[in-house]
């Protein structure tokens, strides 16, 4: 069994206190929520914090409240989010994405906040210390070059959160608490533009709440491509949300791709293209043809990048057909 390196475990009582602890210990400290991403990564020595600041002792961070908008406490587990009646009824894409993360035991422990902050992934990075030492370190940890794109000065590790694309598609915001105060930002601003500094928040800031606006009248979905019926991180995620007027004309559209770049990617051209149109088969085909273009998968995840990029087109098309009530034509979902 791979073992955890030694660390100190701190259990603050408030978010403010947690943020201060993080600030005090600087780069030596990391925050841990459910630990389902952090602990396996620590076992592989992808990072070796000396201090872990746990969020489990902070009161009222697991709450899920739905009046008007939806407020998700960052420590709400993925299972709780996926099973919440209001979430299922009014923000079905959120429930679906949360319910598609890894496997039941990991969803019972993993949190929605941790899912937004989950580390980026790369074949050359999510490996044991022995493996990385023998193949040569890359710049995300201990090395100087990128092993996927050797000429690159940036890291291309993939954003692999299932819920982040949905949150962006629904226009969600997050509350961040620092030692001195808090702020609220739209979810896209949470993410940086590099696989290493993949979060744009300050290291000591803690994500405490996710706010999803009321989306009555919208149709929404999340589709995930993966090798198996369970466990796997997404090879591709597609979140789509569409608002139509009484006549069926698209008034607003959001399409966000996951696992194709260092951050979730909004297909802005396709969104603009859809506005003012009726969601028929032909329009959908054309929108899908535009939407997959910003995907930038590299050869650093399961299956070839060429295939993954082409699948973005197929899956966007299917997501939109699903919202339009047209047959998607794909394999029926596996029932757990």
């Amino acid at each position: 069994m791979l073992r955890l390196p030694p660390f100190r475990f701190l259990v603050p009582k408030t978010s403010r206190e947690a943020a201060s602890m993080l600030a005090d210990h600087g780069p030596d400290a990391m925050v841990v929520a459910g630990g389902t991403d952090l602990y396996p990564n620590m076992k592989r020595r992808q990072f070796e914090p000396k201090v872990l600041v746990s969020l489990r002792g902070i009161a009222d961070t697991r709450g899920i409240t739905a009046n008007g908008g939806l407020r998700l406490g960052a420590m709400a587990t993925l299972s709780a989010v996926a099973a919440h009646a209001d979430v299922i009824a009014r923000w079905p894409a959120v429930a679906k994405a949360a319910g598609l993360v890894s496997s039941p035991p990991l969803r019972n422990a993993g949190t929605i906040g941790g899912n937004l902050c989950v580390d980026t992934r790369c074949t050359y990075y999510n490996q044991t210390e022995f493996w990385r030492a023998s193949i040569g370190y890359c710049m995300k940890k201990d090395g100087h070059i990128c092993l996927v794109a050797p000429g690159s000065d940036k890291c291309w590790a993939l954003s692999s959160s299932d819920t982040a694309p949905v949150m962006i598609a629904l226009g969600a915001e997050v509350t961040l608490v620092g030692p001195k105060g808090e702020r609220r930002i739209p979810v896209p601003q949470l993410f940086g533009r590099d696989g290493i500094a993949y979060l744009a928040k300050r290291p000591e800031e803690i994500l405490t709440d996710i706010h999803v606006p009321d989306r009555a009248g919208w149709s929404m979905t999340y589709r995930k491509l993966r090798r198996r019926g369970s466990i796997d991180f997404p090879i591709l995620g597609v979140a789509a949300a569409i608002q139509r007027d009484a006549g069926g004309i698209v008034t607003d559209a959001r399409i966000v791709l996951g696992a194709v770049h260092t951050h979730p990617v909004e297909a802005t051209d396709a969104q603009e293209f859809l506005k003012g149109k009726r969601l028929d088969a032909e329009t959908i085909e054309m929108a899908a043809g535009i939407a997959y273009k910003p995907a930038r998968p590299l050869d650093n995840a399961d299956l070839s990048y060429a295939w993954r990029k082409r699948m973005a087109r197929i899956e966007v098309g299917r997501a939109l057909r699903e919202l339009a009530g047209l047959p998607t034509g794909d394999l029926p979902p596996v029932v757990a």
Partner: protein
Amino acid sequence: MVNSPSQRTVIGQRLRRPDAPDKVKGTALYIEDLDFAGSLWGGVLRSPHAHARIRKLDTARARGVPGVRAVITAKEIPGRNVIPMVQSDWPVLAQDFVRHVGEGVAVVAADTREALAEGLAAVQVEYEPLPALLDMEEALAAGEVMARYKVRRGEASVALTRSDLIVVEGTYQTPYQEHAYIEPNGMIAAPDGTGGVVVHGSMQCPFYVQKGVASALGLDLNRVRIVQTVTGGGFGGKEDAPSAPGAHAALLAMATGRPVRLILTREEDMAVMSKRHPARVQVKLGATRHGHLIAAEIDYLLDGGAYATLSPVVLFRGTVHACGPYRVPNVKVESRVVRTHKVPCGAFRGFGEPQVVFAFEAALDELAERLGQDPLVLRLKNALQIGDETITGHRLSESVGFREVLEQVAAASDWKRKREEYARERGTVRRGVGLAACYYGVGLGAMGKHLNPAGANVVVAGDGSVTVAVGTTEIGQGMVTVLTQIAAESLGCPPDAVRVMEADTSRVPDSGPTVASRTTVMSGNAIRDAAAKIRAAMEPVIADSGLPWREAVALCVQKQIGLAAHGWAVPPATTFDLATGQGEAYVCYSFSANVVEVEVDTETGETRVKGVWSGHDVGRVVNPTLGEGQVEGGVVQGLGYALTEEHALRDGRILNDQFSTYIIPTPLDVPEIKSVLVESPFPWGPYGAKGLGETPIIAVAPAVVAAIHHAARIRLYTLPATPERVWDAIRALPPPGEAASG
């Protein structure tokens, strides 16, 4: 009542596994659960290079690390630095050269895990990297052949030029496969206080480990006692491979005088332990227009990795089974296993058959299409029957249930209707059914004769309880249950009086390995031999008194009758000529066929398996529940081989050494599996039984690929059938064809 051994009462029943409750509750003690007072942590320093000269190996600093108790390199091995297997090429620890990534260079024992890690890091090794042979074709060109076999029957090359034949031809590639046992390899060795050593561990073949440890330590076999602990799966991966950690742990235990635990991490196990050989198979197959197979030419190449381990034997089995359970009058098989600078491949359920069977069955499916025949009809037409000869000229005189297997899986799966109906599908998602078959020589056969006999010691205690010791192992397959049934049946005692012990080399003579679907037959017959002796001793005393078992035993004890016996089983003799590849390769064969139903998403290339009907002629079903368990487990492993499992390598280093990247099926990826068990008794086997351990995995992948062809009209020549491969093949279909609508 003491049951007369002829009135069968226990054979064929669904006796519950005696080991099930502990395994379910978590009270079973696997190697990592065992505590030995004062034990040290053992670990292995491994090569980061595929091929390099060891310029300098300095352990002085490592020895100085506080808490480090021993550092051992090749120089310090008291016995021979070789693990005895088929060839004497596999070192216990690398000497002068390393020949694959992960090869052991030094072993360290320390008081704590931290000291161990520090000790391993403090060993100073200077490597001079050398060019590495990483490709099997290049190795073949370089003449790095470990072993080669052939089969010559009739005139295959001439026959294939006949103008009246339809000939198909193809080159097939199959990947590495991981055993993915639930428990990694691990051993705990302890000095026995009298100059010998006791090694506990997770393993299939205690007598292999015994030879490896004795050779490394320079001890007689009676100084080396190997005890198998509850073993979390083997599938062949704990056949040859555990000799290495066994020897490593024993070296450290003898050097320190303390127990040493050496348990691999999952990642370490995946990176350095044995796997199924990747293969390249060329097939040329010809039949008459009516579908009678006339000739086959097969060139079979395996990548053996750095050391031979069991590769030659694996190759032999694949060679003699290369044309499946069919009559083929003209055959030429050329097979080779080559040496590369990669992790040594070794035993794996199916043992050299899945690769070549995939190729042959895929070619047969293509031939059926060319002939315009139903693949089932083509197979029935050529199916081996009693009186026929295999491609090695082995005339089959008994126990050939292949036709029944084919007919029953076809009926159970509604084959004919689905073949017709699904062929008309035009949507994005299309259904398909595919068929494939195989046969499997039970036991070690012509190549392993010296290992073939097996022993059993049966002791009846005064209270009527029975202790059975055998040299084969329970590795999750259900041996303990099946042998309990055979012991109860042959002694005429109730099954709950029987206890089958864990394998321990001090209890029984060398009984060969737990492999090759031989355990039920060999240990079963050894138990029957011992039981017959005990019954013979009891008979004069109890006559037909009608006494219940325990009272009958009490009476025998009173009369001072010895109620213990040693049983020994030696299979019938076979003859084989390696120069022509002709003879009786194995004593008898199990037969199998699968129908697989899939849905293929023609836009994405994803395949979902909807059902598997898996038929097997097993001679006699000793326990239907366990038989079905073997079938279901084997089929799941076969589905992984067909669809997701493969290793990617870079510079000889396995890139995916974790279960997040080495992808095996989850329960959600497994459809309903229907076992169809056919009984065509093998008279020499216990109560007619032959083996079932391996047939379930062999003919799964070709059936999946045939089903994908039925659904999407594409031929795949490379496993696994990943979405991208399927998608590429669909895109390559000629344009206006309806299949290309995706």
